[in-house]
């Protein structure tokens, strides 16, 4: 998003409005006394960060990973296990979540990225299931019930036990993620990643060892999702294997697709829409909400393949679909 307002299209105006609204949520919550909304939107922010990390490999790299939620779980457990042992220093928890998730991503990526298409989807799913069952097997940390964090993280002066601080911290991480991803996808590295999505053979013939770049992207995406996992652990004050269930991985894919693949802010819209619709349906329809939500997602996948991107285009947004 350029800072020159004159160059803004519909998309930029919406992004600006979105950031403004997100920044005002704590104010609204404080004035109205509605604390639930801040919890709900915090959850959406965390999902948005996770989805943005997936978008790097899926949207820009063309690599549909069906196991991305495993890095949410790994990051969450990294923070949770440290808290369990009495260390709630976020300045250690978050880097640990980042590095452990990144390490897993590097190993799993090195094995998965030799496959293509449906095989890649299946093998990432298989690895995620392995990690999921490993989580179920963590008897000391609650096995399949998971465990409650006795204390949320502190990062220097910031205390994530405070609802508003947690929210603002998540929002700051989200904005940083948007900015960082914007740099990455437009850098030389990003061009290689996107070029390989467009035409792998051509990129190889030009002289790019595509595998290496994809592995780096997969590792970065995993590591960053680890951060989202540590945030999620703080948001719920709870970690469990459910964080990395395959349905969760599927949800992340849906969020990316809903927001519009190939757009930086897309996952933010996608996550907000997803969390809010999911919540409202569960309020209105009680136990049967999934019967409605599932088909909605399918319809969306069938008819709005570029998600909200299509909407922006209809409204006169820029046509190129490049970055923004």
């Amino acid at each position, binding site marked *: 998003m350029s800072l020159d307002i004159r160059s803004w299209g519909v998309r930029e105006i919406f992004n600006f409005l979105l950031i403004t609204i997100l920044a005002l949520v704590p104010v609204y919550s404080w004035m109205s006394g509605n604390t639930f909304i801040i919890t709900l939107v915090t959850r959406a922010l965390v999902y948005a960060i996770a989805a943005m990390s997936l978008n790097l490999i899926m949207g820009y790299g063309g690599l549909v990973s069906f196991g991305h939620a495993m890095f949410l779980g790994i990051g969450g457990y990294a923070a949770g296990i440290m808290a369990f042992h009495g260390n709630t220093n976020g300045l250690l928890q978050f880097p640990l979540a980042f590095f452990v998730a990144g390490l897993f991503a590097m190993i799993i990526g090195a094995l998965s990225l030799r496959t293509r298409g449906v095989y890649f989807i299946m093998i990432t799913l298989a690895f995620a299931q392995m990690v999921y069952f490993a989580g179920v097997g963590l008897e000391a940390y609650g096995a399949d019930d998971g465990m409650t964090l006795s204390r949320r993280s502190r990062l220097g002066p910031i205390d994530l036990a405070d609802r508003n601080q947690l929210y603002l911290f998540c929002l700051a991480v989200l904005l940083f993620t948007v900015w960082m991803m914007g740099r990455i996808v437009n850098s030389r*590295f990003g*061009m290689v990643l996107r070029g390989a999505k467009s035409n792998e053979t*051509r990129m190889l013939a*030009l002289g790019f060892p595509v595998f290496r770049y994809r592995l780096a992207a997969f590792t970065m995406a995993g590591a960053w999702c680890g951060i989202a996992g540590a945030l999620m652990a703080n948001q719920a004050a709870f970690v469990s294997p459910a964080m990395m269930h395959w349905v969760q991985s599927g949800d992340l894919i849906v969020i990316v697709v809903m927001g519009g693949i190939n757009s930086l802010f897309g996952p933010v819209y996608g996550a907000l829409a997803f969390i809010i619709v999911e919540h409202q349906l569960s309020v209105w329809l009680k136990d049967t909400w999934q019967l409605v939500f599932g088909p909605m997602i399918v319809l969306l996948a069938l008819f709005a393949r570029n998600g909200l991107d299509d909407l922006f285009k209809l409204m006169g947004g820029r046509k190129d679909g490049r970055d923004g």
Partner: protein
Amino acid sequence: MADALLETKSLFKRFGGLVATDNLTIAIRPGEIHALIGPNGAGKSTAVAQLSGQLAPTAGHILFEGRDITRMRMPTRARLGIARSFQITSVLKDFTTLDNVALSVQAHQGHSFRFWKNARKDPTLRDPASLLLNELGLGPRADVITAELSHGEQRQLEIAMALAGDPRVLLLDEPMAGMGPEESTQMVTFLKNLKGSRAMLLVEHDMDAVFALADRITVLVYGRAIATGTPEEIRANAEVRDAYLGADDMVA
């Protein structure tokens, strides 16, 4: 030996029972345009694929400047200076013409583990790419998404991408395929201007173009080289005439 830039020694490629490359020994000398001709299915593209590293040969060797590169992978060969174009146009369809060439320039500027600076605003990538596009007459189309280029323009872009890395040897697989007569003439002129500055293996069906450009010609039939020589020698070769040039559709 030493005078060959890129050569194959007794190269074989089998696809099941089919021998697509049959004991092929061919040498591309520095600065020469070496044409590889032969009927459809003779194994020309298969030879290019093995030279570029896209396909691994079943047996035999490939040498670049005397060094064995048979097992070297395609990106490494490209960075060494072996560039190719594809018979079936292969460009990055969602990118602009300039992006395509700039990526080719980028491939030859060291690794791309550079995460911060905007590549589309990097003059060390954009300037050489623009220059090359202007030379090829594609300058006005620089900012067009390549999917929207005409077929002929996409073929030109193929050449631009192959040239952008300033390669030692160019492997061109039917660069004029599907081009109109005007575009073909333009391409022949362009390749003629390149002649001498770098070695080329030219696979081409258009015999006018081949005889106008080539220093030497190798004739491939069923994967086998039946003759190698100057255009005059090839024209005079009875075996070639019987096997190939005799066919009406191939005579220039």
